[in-house]
């Protein structure tokens, strides 16, 4: 039990990541508001980013920059951060695209609620 707790305290970023992931996934799947779905996706993505960056972190490490006076010191792994930068770029474009789509839907249906949109659509097709 104590080892379990120990693991928990050492690896707390991962637990945060998992909790965020679950929150995000739940939001995406259960909320009917299109905006909330989008927020859920963003939260999930952030969770994964946190996981990656935590993996690259070394406690007491310095920044991995070659500037002449920290050679030899332990430095953190820069690769996950660089990768997550790309991940953030991707997430920005996803968000932008999703917002554009939400706007288009809002203009057509006058609402951003997925259930309501489904109802309205059925009414339109029924006619």
């Amino acid at each position, binding site marked *: 039990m104590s080892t379990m707790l120990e693991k928990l305290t050492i690896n707390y970023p991962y637990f945060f990541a998992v909790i965020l992931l679950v929150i995000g996934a739940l939001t995406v799947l259960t909320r009917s508001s299109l905006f909330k779905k989008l927020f859920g996706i963003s939260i999930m993505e952030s969770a994964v980013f946190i996981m990656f960056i935590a993996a690259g972190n070394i406690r007491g490490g310095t*920044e991995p*920059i070659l500037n*002449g006076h920290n050679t030899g010191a332990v430095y953190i792994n820069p690769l996950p951060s660089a990768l997550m930068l790309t991940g953030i770029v991707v997430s920005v474009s996803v968000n932008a695209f999703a917002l*554009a789509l939400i706007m288009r839907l809002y*203009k057509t249906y006058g609402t951003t609620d997925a259930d309501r949109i489904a109802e309205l659509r059925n009414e339109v097709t029924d006619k």
Partner: protein
Amino acid sequence: MKDFILKRISAVILPFICIYGFYVILHGHISPGGSFAGGIIVGLSLIAFATVYGMEKARARLPEKVLVLIESYGTLWYVIMGLVGVFKGVPFLANKLAGVNVGEPGTLFSGGLILLISVGVGIRVASTMVTLFFALVEDES
């Protein structure tokens, strides 16, 4: 937006933000940040300009055509820089292998093609941010 204070202050601050963005872009290979982070800063300065001075003015200064051109050529620039290696008979995106002078590590003009690529990508990111903003704010989408 007709707020006088906001307009004056942003008139003073925005150029500096913009320049700071370029600084981040140019120093991407020797310090934290880089073309994406810098590009975002530049882009945000332009977006701030649009929010403060209104869309018409912003549109007049940043017509859609120019933004599209920057976006396309920014990406093409990257590819062309990558193809330098191919033309020299070494792999794509080769830097030192392609015979480019990579300079002394730690100085601004080091890293060969990286700096050139950074500039291209940086302004591309800036223009993309602005385009996205315009696309979402303006009526037709």
